[in-house]
C-alpha cells in the first residue's frame, strides 16, 4: 500500500496526491449530492400533486437523472483529501463519497427498473420515486455522519422511506406483510440502537465518534456497567441493519415480499449504507477491547455458513438471493474484523484465532481492509441490481398471490426465449459465486487477501469454503435457464429501461472484472479517514 504514506494530519491519513494544494472538501461539496437527491424528491412530490398529464414516465427519468448527477458529483469528491465538516459532526472522506456513489447507482438503477415494472402494471406514482430518492439521500448522509445522533437520524431517514417503499403494493398480501415485518423489526432495532447511544453518552459524555474513540477505553474501565451494555446495544442495532446472522430472520421475507425494484435497492444501497455505519462505529470503538474482534469474527463465520446453507434449500429464486445477500454480508464482515487484528495479535478463539503474520501494520492494513470492503460493496451492488432486474423482468402481473411466483421453474428455458436476459443472469450468478473474470471474483479475492494478511486465516479459509458451497445454488439457476425445456407459459414483457439496466450491469460486471485497473486506482487514491 505505497499509496498511503502516513502524512499524519490531525489523526487522519492523507493520500500521496498533491494534498498540500487541494483543500479538504467543504460541507457544501460533500452534502451537494444528498441535497440534489432530496430536492428532486420534493419536486417529484409536487409533480404528483400538480401534474395534469396522465403520462408519468418522466418521473422515473427525472429520478434516474438526479441520481446520475449526484453520483457524478460524489465521484469527483472521491479524489479530495479527507476532512471534518460541520463542526466535526460530519466527516468527508473517500469512504463517504464512494458510498454516496453506490447509493446513487442503486437509486438510479432501481428507478429505471421501476419505470418498466410499474408501467406494465399501471401503477406509476411520483411518491415512489420521491421515497426512493429520500432513501438514497439518507444513505449518503449516513456515510457522512461522524456523530451517533446524526447517524441514527439518517439511518431512520433511509429506513422509514424504505418501509413505505416495501408497502408500495398496499393491496398485495406479500408486499404489506413484508413491509410490516421490516417496519416492526426495524423500529425495534432502531430503539435498541438509540438506547445504546444513550448509555454510551452517559458513560463518556459525548456522542461524537472521534471523541468517543479517546474517551471509551477509559470509560470501559471506570463505568463498565454503562459502557459495555451501550456498546453491545449499538452493535446489535447495526447488525440487524446489515442482516448478520442471529438477527437476519427478516431478510428473506422482506426481500421476497417487497416489489422487485425495491428489493434491488435494498440489496444494493441499504446493505452498503448499513455497512458504512457499522464500519464507522467499530473503527472508533473497536480498539478498546479484543472482545469486539471476537464478536465480529464469530458473526462473520456464522453469517457466511448459515446464509449459504439456507440458500441451498431454496427453490424460490428471490428468497435464494435474499439468503445469498446474508452470506455476502458475512464475507464483508471478514473485512470489518480485519480492521482490528493488529491491535489484538494472538487472541485465541479456536478456528477463528488471529495468527501473527509479519507484514501488516495498522497504517497499511486498515486502508487495505477499507478498500476491500468498498470494492466488495460496489461489486455486489452492481451484480445484485442486475440479478433482481432479471427477476423483475420475468415477473408477471398476476404473480402476487401465487405460491410459485419466483420458483426456479419460471427460469426454465429462458436461454431460448430471452437469450439476452439469460446471458445477463448467468453473468450475475457467476459474479455472485466468484467465478474468475467477473467483478465478484475480484471482490472476494481482495477481501480474503486482506483477511489472510490480517491474520484471520481460519476465517478466510471458512469464507472460501462457504463461497464454494454457494456455487451450488448459483449454478443451479444457470442449469435451469440453459438445460431445462421451456414451458409454454407467457413470460414478462420487454421494456427498454429494464433492458438498459441489465445491459449496463452485465457490461460492468464483465468489464470491471477483466480490467479493474482504473477502479482500483481510484479506490487507492481515495483518502480514508482512519482514527489512530
Amino acid at each position: 500500500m505505497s499509496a498511503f504514506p502516513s502524512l499524519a494530519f490531525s489523526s487522519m491519513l492523507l493520500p500521496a496526491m498533491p494534498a498540500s494544494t487541494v483543500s479538504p472538501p467543504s460541507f457544501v461539496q460533500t452534502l451537494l449530492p444528498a441535497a440534489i437527491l432530496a430536492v428532486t424528491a420534493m419536486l417529484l412530490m409536487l409533480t404528483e400533486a400538480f401534474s395534469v398529464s396522465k403520462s408519468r414516465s418522466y418521473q422515473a427519468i427525472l429520478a434516474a437523472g438526479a441520481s446520475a448527477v449526484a453520483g457524478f458529483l460524489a465521484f469527483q469528491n472521491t479524489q479530495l483529501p479527507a476532512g471534518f465538516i460541520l463542526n466535526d459532526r460530519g466527516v468527508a472522506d473517500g469512504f463517504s463519497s464512494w458510498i454516496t456513489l453506490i447509493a446513487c447507482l442503486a437509486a438510479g438503477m432501481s428507478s429505471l427498473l421501476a419505470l418498466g415494472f410499474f408501467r406494465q402494471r399501471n401503477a406509476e406514482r411520483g411518491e415512489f420515486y420521491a421515497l426512493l430518492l429520500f432513501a438514497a439521500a439518507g444513505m449518503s448522509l449516513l456515510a457522512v455522519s461522524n456523530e451517533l445522533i446524526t447517524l441514527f437520524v439518517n439511518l431512520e431517514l433511509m429506513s422509514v422511506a424504505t418501509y413505505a417503499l416495501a408497502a408500495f403494493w398496499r393491496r398485495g398480501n406479500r408486499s404489506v406483510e413484508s413491509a410490516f415485518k421490516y417496519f416492526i423489526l426495524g423500529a425495534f432495532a432502531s430503539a435498541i440502537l438509540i438506547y445504546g447511544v444513550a448509555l454510551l453518552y452517559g458513560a463518556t459524555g459525548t456522542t461524537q465518534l472521534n471523541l468517543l474513540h479517546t474517551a471509551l477505553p477509559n470509560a470501559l474501565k471506570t463505568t463498565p456497567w454503562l459502557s459495555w451494555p451501550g456498546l453491545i446495544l449499538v452493535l446489535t442495532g447495526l447488525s440487524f441493519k446489515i442482516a448478520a446472522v442471529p438477527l437476519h430472520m427478516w431478510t428473506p421475507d422482506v426481500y421476497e415480499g417487497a416489489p422487485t425494484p425495491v428489493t434491488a435497492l435494498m440489496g444494493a444501497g441499504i446493505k452498503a449504507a448499513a455497512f458504512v455505519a457499522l464500519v464507522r462505529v467499530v473503527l472508533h470503538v473497536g480498539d478498546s477491547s479484543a472482545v469486539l474482534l471476537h464478536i465480529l469474527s464469530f458473526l462473520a463465520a456464522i453469517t457466511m455458513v448459515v446464509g449459504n446453507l439456507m440458500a441451498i434449500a431454496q427453490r424460490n429464486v428471490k428468497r435464494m438471493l435474499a439468503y445469498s445477500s446474508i452470506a455476502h454480508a458475512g464475507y464483508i464482515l471478514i473485512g470489518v474484523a480485519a480492521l482490528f487484528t493488529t491491535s489484538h495479535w494472538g487472541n485465541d478463539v479456536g478456528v477463528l484465532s488471529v495468527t501473527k503474520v509479519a507484514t501488516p501494520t495498522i497504517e497499511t492494513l486498515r486502508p487495505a481492509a477499507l478498500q476491500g470492503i468498498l470494492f466488495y460493496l460496489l461489486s455486489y451492488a452492481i451484480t445484485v441490481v442486475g440479478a433482481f432486474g432479471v427477476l423483475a423482468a420475468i415477473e408477471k402481473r398476476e404473480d402476487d398471490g401465487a405460491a410459485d411466483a419466483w420458483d426456479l421453474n419460471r427460469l426454465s428455458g429462458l436461454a431460448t426465449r430471452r437469450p439476452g436476459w439469460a446471458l445477463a443472469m448467468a453473468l450475475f450468478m457467476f459474479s455472485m459465486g466468484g467465478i474468475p473474470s467477473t467483478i465478484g471474483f475480484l471482490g472476494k479475492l481482495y477481501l480474503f487477501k486482506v483477511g489472510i494478511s490480517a491474520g484471520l486465516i481460519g476465517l478466510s479459509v471458512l469464507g472460501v469454503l462457504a463461497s464454494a458451497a454457494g456455487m451450488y445454488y448459483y449454478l443451479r439457476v444457470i442449469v435451469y435457464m440453459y438445460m431445462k425445456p421451456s414451458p409454454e407459459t407467457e413470460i414478462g414483457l420487454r421494456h427498454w429501461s429494464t433492458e438498459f439496466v441489465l445491459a449496463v450491469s452485465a457490461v460492468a460486471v464483465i468489464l470491471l472484472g477483466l480490467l479493474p485497473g482504473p477502479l482500483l486506482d481510484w479506490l487507492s487514491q481515495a483518502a480514508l479517514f482512519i482514527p489512530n
Partner: protein
Amino acid sequence: MIPVTACLLLSAMLFCLGMLGFLLRKNALIVFMSVELMLNAANLAFIGFARVHGDITGHVSVFFVIAVAAAEAAVGLAIIIALYRNRKTLDVDEVRFMKH
C-alpha cells in the same frame, strides 16, 4: 429534588418492559407501542445523563428522537392499517403468508 439515579432506573425499567412487550405480546398495535416505550426510555436516559454531565447534547438528542419517533409512527400506523385491511386481524402470529 429527584435524584438522577431514579431517573435512570426508571428508564432502564421502561426499556426492559418495552422489550418484553415487543417479544411477548401478539397484537400489532401493542407491539408497536412497546417500541415507542423503548424510544421514550432512551429519551429519559438522555435527559438523566444530560443532567449528570451538565451539557446540552442530551437535551437536543431527545428532540431528534421524538421527531424520528413521530415519522416512524406515521409510516408504521399506515402499514398496520394496510395490514388490517388485507387480513382483518392484527395478530402478529397470523402474519405469515410467506413460508420458508
